């Protein structure tokens, strides 16, 4: 061994240089190979793709769309769909998981058994199998002609139909956005320290923004309404199919049910673990101070358990958001499916995959950042829970 290689510092520098070189060789080599292969197959590369019209359409979108829209718009549609499914799925999973989890923490043998059966059953079957099952179930519902009616709702193998506003797509999106702002902005206004106003004035401001936002949304809806038809369109059977109203396609329902149920089973276990992490001493102290069982639950155990479960819950949420990609197996047009179709249609594999990865990195890093902030905000000061 030459002398200089025996020097620890030189060795460390050399190892790191080697590491960087190896990474570079892999990345650059892969890139050059890709360039050559693509050229040989006459595939155009570059992100000019984003501006081109797709020439194909999607079957589910919250945003208005047509086959002549460019790729970037379709990617956006995909992200919105993924986020929409993800948000609703997480909400449903949290609802189910919270209920079952609390059922399992109450010292009641029957509730415990019920919760445990649920968790054991749904957690031990792959999610994608459950997705297929629910999809088969909703597509084997009666045909539109024999659709099942629940009041204003109509359920058939083509999906769930419900009455909808007869308003143009763009206006609907704008109204939805306004309404969202009208709800979120007051929340922020009520808490922010940026504005220093007396509480009464602040309350007035909050109410004003809320009312103004709702009013603006209504105005947008009225302006955008389709003058030809009635304001509210109801689903009606016309020939072999149902027309009018809002259709929730079976792909979406199947994904939502599957994610809600499967995620619920996991979240139930996290909730149970969170309650288990609350020391017995805390509960006993609450009882000793004379709090009723309900008070002790809501004031002591729940807040402590929430803090304990939050980091794990964040991981589970990220996992569930990623799991929405399984929609491709049954044809739900989420972000991943749009990317896959793009690759099929344009052949621009590398760009599409790069967009996919960037999209998911952005979604997950945002989610992780949000949870980190919540975690920091509610974390107990110091190490009071240790020991």
């Amino acid at each position, binding site marked *: 061994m030459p002398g200089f290689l*025996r*020097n*620890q*510092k*030189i060795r460390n520098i050399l190892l790191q240089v080697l590491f960087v070189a190896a990474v570079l060789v892999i990345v650059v080599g892969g890139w050059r190979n890709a360039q050559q292969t693509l050229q040989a197959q006459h595939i155009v590369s570059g992100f000019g793709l984003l501006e081109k019209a797709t020439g194909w359409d999607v079957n589910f979108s919250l945003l208005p769309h047509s086959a002549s829209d460019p790729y970037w718009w379709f990617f956006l549609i995909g992200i919105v769909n993924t986020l929409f499914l993800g948000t609703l799925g997480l909400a449903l999973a949290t609802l189910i998981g919270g209920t079952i989890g609390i059922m399992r923490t109450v010292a009641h043998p029957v509730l415990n058994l019920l919760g445990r059966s649920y968790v054991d059953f749904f957690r031990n079957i792959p999610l994608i199998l459950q997705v297929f099952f629910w999809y088969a179930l909703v597509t084997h519902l009666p045909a539109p002609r024999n659709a099942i009616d629940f009041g204003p709702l109509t359920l058939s193998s083509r999906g769930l139909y419900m009455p909808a506003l007869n308003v143009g797509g763009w206006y609907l999106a704008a109204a939805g956005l306004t309404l969202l702002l009208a709800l979120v902005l007051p929340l922020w206004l009520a808490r922010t320290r940026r504005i220093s106003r007396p509480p009464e004035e602040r309350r007035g401001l909050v109410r004003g923004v809320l009312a103004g936002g709702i009013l603006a949304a209504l105005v947008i809806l009225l302006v955008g309404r389709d003058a030809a038809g009635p304001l509210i369109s109801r689903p009606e059977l016309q020939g072999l199919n149902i027309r009018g109203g809002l259709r929730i396609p079976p792909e979406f329902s199947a994904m939502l049910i599957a994610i809600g149920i499967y995620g619920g089973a996991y979240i139930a276990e996290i909730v149970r673990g969170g309650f288990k992490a609350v020391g017995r001493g805390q509960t006993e102290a609450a009882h000793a101070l004379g709090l009723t069982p309900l008070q002790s639950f809501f004031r002591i155990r729940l807040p402590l358990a929430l803090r304990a479960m939050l980091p794990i819950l964040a991981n589970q949420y990220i996992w569930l958001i990623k799991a929405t990609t399984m929609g491709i197996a049954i044809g739900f047009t989420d972000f991943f499916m749009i990317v896959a179709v793009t690759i099929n249609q344009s052949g621009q594999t590398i760009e599409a995959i790069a967009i996919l990865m960037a999209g998911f990195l952005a979604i997950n890093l945002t989610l992780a950042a949000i949870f980190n902030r919540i975690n920091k905000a509610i974390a107990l000061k110091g190490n009071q829970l240790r020991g």
Partner: protein
Amino acid sequence: MTRSDLAVSIAAMNKYYGNFHALKDIDLRVEPGEKVVVCGPSGSGKSTMIRCINRLEEHNSGLIEVLGIELNDDVGNIDEIRREVGMVFQHFNLFPHMTVLENCVLAPMLVRKTPRAQAEAAAMRYLEKVRIPEQAQKYPGQLSGGQQQRVAIARSLCMEPKVMLFDEPTSALDPEMISEVLDVMVSLASDGMTMICVTHEMGFARRVADRVIFMDRGEIVETADPETFFSAPKNERTRQFLSQVMGH
């Protein structure tokens, strides 16, 4: 005596943690067979100093030589010094997933390539020396603190080191177990082992040490033979420390 004949020689050694000056211009020469006891208040840098001797901490400047080998960035030198210098820790640091015997034979077999039978025979000899040969097949978790520390001493001895470092070997022990560990250390000293020992056991220092070193705030404040050290300390800080340790 020339420098390379010394067991440990430290000259103008400095150590920083970031901006904190942990060791200031340390000079220390330990002759073969000498027993040095290092004492001082907590945070005075005494553990850091002996941990520099086998490169568990890296010194920033100055010269450290162990058995004539310079301790620098040369990995070969570091390995060689670690082979020749044994160390006993405050928290024993026995390997919990191995039996006492496996703890003892691991390093000789891996580092010195000693055949298993030979390594086991040597290990049993040292376990007898620390008076727990009957625990050889047990796991560390099944032993008391005093027993564990004696195993740790035996484990170090199995490498047949020329210098032994002790980093507060009795601080983590229950009072009734301290003497069994000190007895082993005394008998080791009487065998002529070179020892550098960080400890608060002043009785041990009086009985065994050739020299006592007092450290405070990263400096060697006073060096003396035990008799002078305990009866006529020169430095004010030493006197204060001694009155706190011996006072009750």
